[in-house]
């Protein structure tokens, strides 16, 4: 049933895209688990489906918002207090030269 073979390279790529640094042990462990999980889940291939992809279970459409004069947030300092590194009101992050 398994058509998806997850090789080392795949785990490497996935962890890069997901910005998750993994130890070698973790890489091996996850690779093994993913193969088992996806093999188990490939049972969904059995289901006869139409073309419709169900993204939303509610029927709402067109929820638009009227543009009006701005309502500034009243606790901006509380947001800033959670910034990890600050300088002169900016958030400090590594440089990219």
């Amino acid at each position, binding site marked *: 049933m398994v058509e998806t073979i997850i090789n080392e390279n795949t785990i490497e790529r996935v962890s890069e895209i997901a910005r998750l*640094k993994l130890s070698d042990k973790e890489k091996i462990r996850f690779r093994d688990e993913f193969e088992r999980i996806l093999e188990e889940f490939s049972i969904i291939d059995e289901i006869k489906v139409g073309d419709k992809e169900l*993204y939303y*279970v509610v029927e709402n459409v067109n929820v638009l918002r009227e543009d009006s004069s701005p309502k500034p947030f009243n606790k901006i300092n*509380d947001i800033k207090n959670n*910034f990890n590194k600050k300088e002169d009101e900016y958030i400090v992050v590594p440089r990219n030269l």
Partner: protein
Amino acid sequence: MFTKDLIDNLLSTSIEENLHKKSEEIKKRDKEINSFITLGIEEAEKASKEIENKIKGNTQGKLSGLVISIKDNIAVSNLRMTCGSKVLENYVAPYDATVTNRIKKQDGIIIGKCNMDEFACGSDGTSSYFGPTKNPRNIEYVPGGSSSGSAASVAADFCDLSLGSDTGGSIRCPASFCGVYGFKPSYGLVSRYGLSDMAMSLEGPGPFAKDTYGIALLLDVIAGKDSRDTVTVEREKLSYTETVEKFNDSDIKKMKIAFAKEFFEGVDEGIKKIILDKIGDLESLGAKIEEVSMPNLKYAIPIYYLVVFSEFSSAMSKFDGFKYGHYVGGQDIVEAVSSTREAAMGTEVKRRVLLGTFVTMEEFRGKWYTKALKARSVIKEDFKRIFNSYDLLIGPTMPTLPWKIGERISDPLSMYSADILTVSANLAGICASSQPIGNLKQLPVGLQLHADSLCESKLLKGMRAVEIACGGM
């Protein structure tokens, strides 16, 4: 009508006393149970004084000073919001969730933030960075998850009501395991603004209580369209509490209740018996009971988890450490973010982020992500068919009793399979509930009801019927 009596009682005695009693209980026993991550006793005491004055002038809100605990993935401003994770260990919410706002407006007293499985990734309440929560009914056993602290705090009398969230059973499971009432509202009924949800198209906040009335009361306060969450819809134009109050025994004769055999496959024999007995009781009281089939139930877990993985990995992208949360830093922006995320996230969280990334990648998404979304309609249609002819679907909430803490090896697939009876409701967006109907080996057994989307009144009537059949109140 336990909760109703409680309110009447409060009105004649003291809000402050009720609060004080609760905080004393917490001091005494929560060290062991570990249902709270953050307490807000001071603010609660201040609020209680204000509400006391309102009661004197008879201007109090619907919640009249009842003590409420809130799951730690729902924002309460100026209190920590950790989502049970090291990632947000020191994050203080700068705003109130819509549900928090509504509770405060109706004079609920928020006593603290409840422990939970890390970022709601779990079904037993043992994966929190802040340590596992214990089941108040027997502290050697798991309380269920992911709203573990919410259920436990109600069961332990640390509060009168609680607010949790349900993605695939996260309210119903701990309600069942802790022996309390838990309710998963229809998707779109309750605003998710302020809920750090794990899977956006499946999840929503919902109430815990000790009885149907308590559920209806909190639901009346939190339900209804919100401009801050575009998926919210108009609620039924009636009062849930009135619906419950007006229901009487004779209404049971009008009910058409279905049960599906697939919902009993793989379920513990003892649990099966208790549930079937209760169904028999309802039949004796005049309800029409019939068997139906849900042939696609066996696909529910893969479909559910594939959707969860995809949405979860997207939801978790925001945690890079720059704006809030744990931060490790590094040479460059890639290094800094990768190390930060690696250091702060637990194993199950990492697992789901990686799997979610994988199944939405270009070369893999057709087989997994897209397929799951197409298959999801199949589950929704199954329920539609059943609710065309029936008011309710009845069955057990969990396939087993709570297990001992540490007993189950944390193998992901076996963890996931525990959700088999609860995930379908989330896939279809309908409402569902769990209520305690008895004990087995001295552990609580939960009975689950489902009703069609936005038919909360039907579901509440069903819960009331079961309550009556249990000889309750």
